[in-house]
């Protein structure tokens, strides 16, 4: 077990290193015009040269990469090109927003997805099952930018026109401004993210539950005279959740690294939106910082899922 863990962590580090190389390489394939953007339209070649020199962009790529890596080991991801703010600081400001979005949505999609999936599975081909399927397919096939815009159109625009100003048009209200404001700002982004994922989880839970309900040990549970609720939740769902939880860990890990589309639609300055802005401005230190963090989230989530899997399924524990 311990050996396995060490191995996974080493693998993770290798993945992260490869990602820094890839991002660096990509960045330098595209001709850089950071200095030109910074210096403005009238800039003389000398100004541009000075800017490039100050940002270190005139150094050889390998030297730049080495500087980045050696600083990164000390937790310093450099400064952004435009405002000279530490990248770690930018990320620390964006992270709570993405966390609010991802975790809040996770609660909703897990609750919806698992509940709907279970209901579908215990009455297969019933009206409830069919309507869950329609619900799932409807949201599953909907792009989240479209869903987000629809929610804004109906729940913000139409409601506000009708005189009910319940939801804001976007933006973020930190928890320090009160839970109520924070909550209202997050509801529509949560729904946008959660409904699409809930659809996936409904299908996943349903098929996993259907598999488990056909197992012999469910027949055993019924033959013990247990009531149907106990059979469903303590016996069937216990096993059926294993693949769901695995998927959940991976999805959540991915989202914590930034939720690009939803954050953009609702102008939430989280990691996803920050990354998009940085990319359009070719702000390399910020891009690398966020990509590195996002990859680290995925890597860590995968390791955690493996550990969790061993915890959930006793058969994995010993081998």
């Amino acid at each position: 077990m311990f050996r396995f863990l060490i191995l996974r962590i080493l693998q993770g580090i290798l993945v992260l290193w490869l990602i820094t190389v890839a991002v660096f390489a990509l960045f330098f394939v595209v001709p850089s015009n950071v200095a030109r953007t910074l210096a403005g339209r009238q800039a003389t070649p000398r100004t541009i040269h000075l800017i490039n020199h100050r940002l270190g962009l005139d150094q050889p790529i390998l030297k730049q990469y080495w500087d980045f890596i050696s600083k990164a080991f000390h937790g310093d991801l450099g400064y952004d090109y435009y405002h000279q703010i530490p990248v770690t600081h930018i990320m620390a400001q964006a992270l709570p927003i993405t966390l609010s979005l991802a975790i809040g949505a996770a609660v909703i999609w897990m609750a919806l997805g698992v509940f709907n999936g279970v209901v579908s599975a215990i009455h297969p081909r019933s009206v409830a099952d069919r309507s869950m399927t329609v619900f799932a397919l409807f949201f599953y096939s909907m792009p989240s930018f479209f869903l987000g815009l629809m929610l804004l159109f109906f729940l913000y625009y139409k409601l506000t026109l009708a005189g009910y100003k319940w939801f804001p048009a976007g933006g973020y209200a930190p928890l320090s401004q009160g839970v109520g404001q924070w909550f209202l700002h997050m509801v529509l982004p949560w729904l946008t993210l959660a409904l699409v994922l809930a659809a996936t989880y409904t299908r996943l839970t349903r098929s996993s539950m259907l598999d488990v309900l056909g197992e012999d040990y469910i027949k055993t549970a019924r033959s013990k005279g247990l009531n149907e609720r106990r059979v469903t939740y303590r016996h069937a769902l216990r096993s059926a959740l294993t693949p769901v939880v695995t998927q959940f860990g991976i999805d959540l890990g991915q989202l914590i690294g930034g939720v690009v589309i939803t954050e953009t639609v609702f102008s939430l300055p989280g990691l996803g939106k920050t990354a998009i802005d940085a990319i359009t401005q070719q702000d390399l230190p910020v891009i690398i910082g966020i990509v590195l963090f996002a990859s680290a989230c995925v890597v860590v989530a995968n390791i955690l899922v493996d550990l969790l899997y061993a915890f959930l399924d006793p058969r994995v524990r010993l081998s």
Partner: protein
Amino acid sequence: MALLEVDDLHVSFDTADGVVRAVRGVSFTVEPGQTLGIVGESGSGKSVATQSLTRLVAGAKITGSAMFDGLDLLHASQREMRRIRGRRIGMIFQDPLSSLHPCYTVGWQIIEMIRAHESVPRRRARQRAIELLDLVRIPNARARIDDFPHQFSGGMRQRVMIAMAMALNPALLIADEPTTALDVTVQAQVLKVMQDVQADTGTAIILITHDLGVIADVADEVVVMYAGQVMERARRREIFYQFHHPYTEGLLASLPGHGGTRDRLTPIPGNPPSLLAKLDPCPFVPRCPYVFDKCRREVPPLAPVHPDERHLSACWLEPDRALQFEWESSKFAQISSTAHR
């Protein structure tokens, strides 16, 4: 008085291909403390017939009656059935590898059984679970109670199933092919455990199997099923020495090492009929070596074979055919020897 009296049991399923009539008018009785063996090929309806008694067969249409200790199982409410299952009727199934929940310890699963029906403190239930594991001869039960099913071998898991099914001293234990998935040496151990538990607790057993060797070991009375119907019903001795029905004869003849010739198996030609189709008046007609005109015209009733009132057979052949077989069937002596070991 009989513990279980099943009368004219019919079970059918609606499928996309039509109605499958899996059980077609089966009747039998189980006396307290006795073992009833039900034999037949795969698809003869033996499992469906017994599992439908506890109403655990999804999508089955069940008619007839099944009086268990004064309660009609087929018309009881779900609530009443839940009180019966586990507490009054214990069940064990064919595949011990998949019948126990992989995510819970065996102790947890036995304790759950006890506490589903009796409000006893967890400590007492645990103590009882350890005693039960001892009873089915799991070595070092006190330590192994916290092990997961995958840490036990197949035979051990079947013993755990027996321990769990016997946790509340049920009056009836339904064992659906309990030894089929086990290898031969383990089969004998598991059967022995079942017999010992029966001797200890006085539970009645319905033992479903396709293995006549298993029946020869433990059954008091035997029901031979074919195509959802009872072909022959008699005490064990009669089934092995004075069988009447050609199907019973075919089953006995096809036992390896016990057939007519030493080196060759003697199979019953053909396959069991599809239960979707309309059958001949006697369903065994297409495979019966003794078939004659009347078999194709009239349904043979399950009637006593002269002179024994308790030996029933559904066949038009002469009743005293059963007696003629007494001396011919010395070739089956070998099977019965296993019955007395």
